[in-house]
């Protein structure tokens, strides 16, 4: 397929996932800020900006309303929900001939339906809208698209973004505070609370929560699960391109990056990772950057 289209598919995957995750994180965080009257709003807002790499921001921006303006409805910011959807839609517009009509129309109406402004009293409805609509888009991708190259690139974008987002949430988390409330907030920010509770019979524990988010092999949002899926997608992609049997599984530079990261997370003691988790999560984000570049060199801008 055309390199430019492959690139666009990858970014559709990333931006839809980013919008979805952003809605999930903000829903949890902002709700807790507005509920908790004893808490100081400004540092809590600063922590939210931090997750999205937007710090430091001026004092005047440290209000729930400004967070909503900048991270929900600002179409000029590709990391806001509306901006991410807009970017996904623009990429989709450039790749319409490979998307099914259903997927395109669903992305288009989702983007057009995002409000241009939102008050905190109505924010939950907007987050719900974004999450629901992203689920519809993903569902249509799942149900209507052939598992060809185009789908694989979209899927890779989605998985890489998911790892990146989890790493951001974990990095910004206050690991000093191991209270149940804070740990539950962490799990909920990653949409992992219910899955975790079922697994650990309701026992909330900070160390186990981090282990679950990083290593659980069957929870679809854990870093390890996503990395495994990325590796699988890369292998299929290699086969589609008719590369000869890669016996060692080490020929694709992207697969080497994934493999190393996965082994590093899985086969070190969890204590080791938790020892300097902020640094480790920073590294994990760099892995997603390196993966994106490796895909670029191999598929999006091959030297030809």
């Amino acid at each position, binding site marked *: *397929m*055309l*390199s*430019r*289209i*492959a*690139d*666009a598919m990858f*970014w559709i995957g990333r931006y839809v996932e980013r919008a979805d995750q952003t809605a999930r994180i903000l829903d949890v965080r902002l709700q807790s800020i507005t509920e908790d009257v004893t808490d100081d709003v400004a540092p809590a807002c600063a922590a939210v900006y931090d997750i*999205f*790499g*937007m710090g430091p921001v001026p004092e005047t921006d440290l209000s729930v309303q400004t967070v909503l303006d900048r991270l929900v409805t600002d179409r000029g910011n*590709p*990391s806001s929900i509306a901006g991410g959807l807009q*970017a996904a839609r*623009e*990429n989709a*517009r*450039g790749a*319409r*001939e490979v998307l099914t*009509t259903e997927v*395109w*129309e669903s992305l*288009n*109406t989702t983007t*057009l339906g995002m409000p241009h402004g939102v008050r905190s009293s109505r924010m939950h409805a907007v987050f719900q809208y974004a999450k629901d609509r992203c689920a519809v888009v993903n569902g249509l991708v799942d149900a209507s698209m052939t598992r060809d*190259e185009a789908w694989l690139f979209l899927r890779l974008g989605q998985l890489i973004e998911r790892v*990146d987002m989890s790493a951001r949430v974990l990095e910004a988390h206050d690991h000093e505070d191991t209270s149940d409330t804070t740990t539950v907030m962490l799990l909920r920010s990653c949409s992992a609370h219910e899955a975790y509770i079922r697994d650990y019979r309701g026992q909330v524990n900070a160390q186990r929560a981090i282990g679950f988010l990083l290593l659980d092999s069957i929870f679809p949002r854990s870093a390890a699960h996503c990395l495994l899926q990325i590796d699988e997608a890369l292998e299929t992609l290699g086969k*589609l*391109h*008719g590369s000869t049997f890669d016996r060692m599984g080490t020929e694709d530079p992207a697969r080497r990056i994934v493999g190393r990261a996965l082994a590093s997370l899985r086969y070190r003691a969890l204590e080791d990772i938790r020892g300097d988790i902020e640094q480790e999560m920073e590294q994990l*984000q*760099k892995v*997603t*950057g*390196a993966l*994106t*570049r490796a895909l670029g060199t191999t*598929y*999006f*801008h*091959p*030297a*030809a």
Partner: protein
Amino acid sequence: MVRMSASSLFHGIEAGGDGDEMFAADGSVRPSYRSLHDALARLGEEEFRSRSESLARSYLDQGVTFDYAGEERPFPIDAIPRVIAAEEWAEVSAGISQRVRALERFLEDLYSGAEAVKDGVIPAELAGSSTYIVDAMRGYTPPNGVRIHISGIDLVRDGSGGFRVLEDNVRTPSGVSYVLSNRRAMAQTFPELFADRPVRSVGEYPGRLLNALRAAAADHAGEEPTVVVLTPGRFNSAYFEHSLLARTMGVDLVEASDLVERHDRIYMRTTAGLRRVDVIYKRTDDDFIDPEVFRPDSVLGVPGLVRAILAHNVVVANGIGNGIGDDKLTYTYVPDLIRYYLQEEPILRNVDTWRLEEPEARAEVLDRLDELVVKPVDGSGGKGIVIGPSATREELDAMRARLQADPRGWIAQPVVQLSTIPTLVEEGPEPRHADLRPFALNSGDDVWVLPGGLTRVALPKGEMIVNSSRGGGSKDTWVLGAQGPTRVEVPTSTGYIRVLERDEADEPVETGEEEPYAQEQDQRQSEPEPVTSAIPLLDAEDLAEDREEYDPEDLDGDVAAAETDPHREANDAQ
């Protein structure tokens, strides 16, 4: 008594209005419109309005838009279709086909020996003075001889009710995507209107277009030539159309940066390396298509494309250099060209036109400027047109000076009273002016005219310019199926009368339920490409030199804008 059935829905339309296609001067409904009129009237005004709104919304949801002053807008569609009777369509179709065949011969002639000039059919100055003749293409003949693969010739109904040709578009006529989308949207929103009316289907177009493009490929391209659609990009006003055509044909939509020339061949950049391209349906203007030959500053072009064409390694549709066929001065000679090349009488007449380089004509036009329409010979999209009766004194004076300075640059026509069709506006259905652009495809064996075409309608009251850039909308265009064979008589210069008979009984008609893009599925059923075709077409040695020139910045283009990810630079800078 027929007035009675013109229920409340059409109450706003006054009897005796001149030149309306649905209502005759006495207020009765014309036969071809009768069943549609009754079906619409049965819906009632409220239901009709609410469905019209859902029609508009469905366009926004589907992204059926055009770019207007940098903004993406839904293309306005009016819910009252235009109806054309089978017998009249047979005439239009034969006339369009005849005109395309004559223009093909004319282009072939101009780019080879220019016999028509030697024989005195057209003046040497026409060929010599047009900025549209592309010297680089002289002596070149495409593999199957076709230069006008796709055409869209604009017709209007004059005061007497007959169709006349307003202008020829043989470069990059656009609008066919709206023909396809209008039909799909109408069939979804107003399915009952199609019941009992044999409306001819428009869904064949993408398949026919693909066949015409494949037929254009050079023999060495093999059985399955690679066809692509070349778009200037997402910010082009017709991007929606480029995308729809690529999608419904099942071919790649490429931008100039996706194509590259190597050794006089054209390749596209894919995830598996370079892949050879055989036929390019270009939607970029000639001026921008190849910076080696045309504007050197163009970023929308493919350097070396013209060399590849001349080496017969790639075919571009429509042909580069077709602009002379669209020249409005050429237009005035087309009836003569039909007689000269085809030995036939024109089936469709031109609108009367004055050539300003002829002294008597110029004197008359200058004298009557306030009652005529003046058009630039190289204009499109309604640009530069001055309508005498609605122009100010200053505008007319300025126009007079420009005509005297550059008579070759302009033509003049009487104000044609375009026919009207009832169109839904605030106050209800009211008559609005409309034109018609039928689309024709030339595969080399046959010129096929899509039964339908784009009806554009001027939404402001009294407005005569229907272009979307001037706030125009469109209507679904219904060509009715014939009850029996149709018959068109074409007089020839030998006195013999050529009779064209067609039996359209087997032609597909719209059912109102059928998926109009059935063609799309048919294409899919053909043999899928083996995935191993992803092996690069060139050896690494071939590209050793080029590799050094490779600049990744070149590829990013405008897509990168949507992907800029400012706060994530930390990751990428690792």
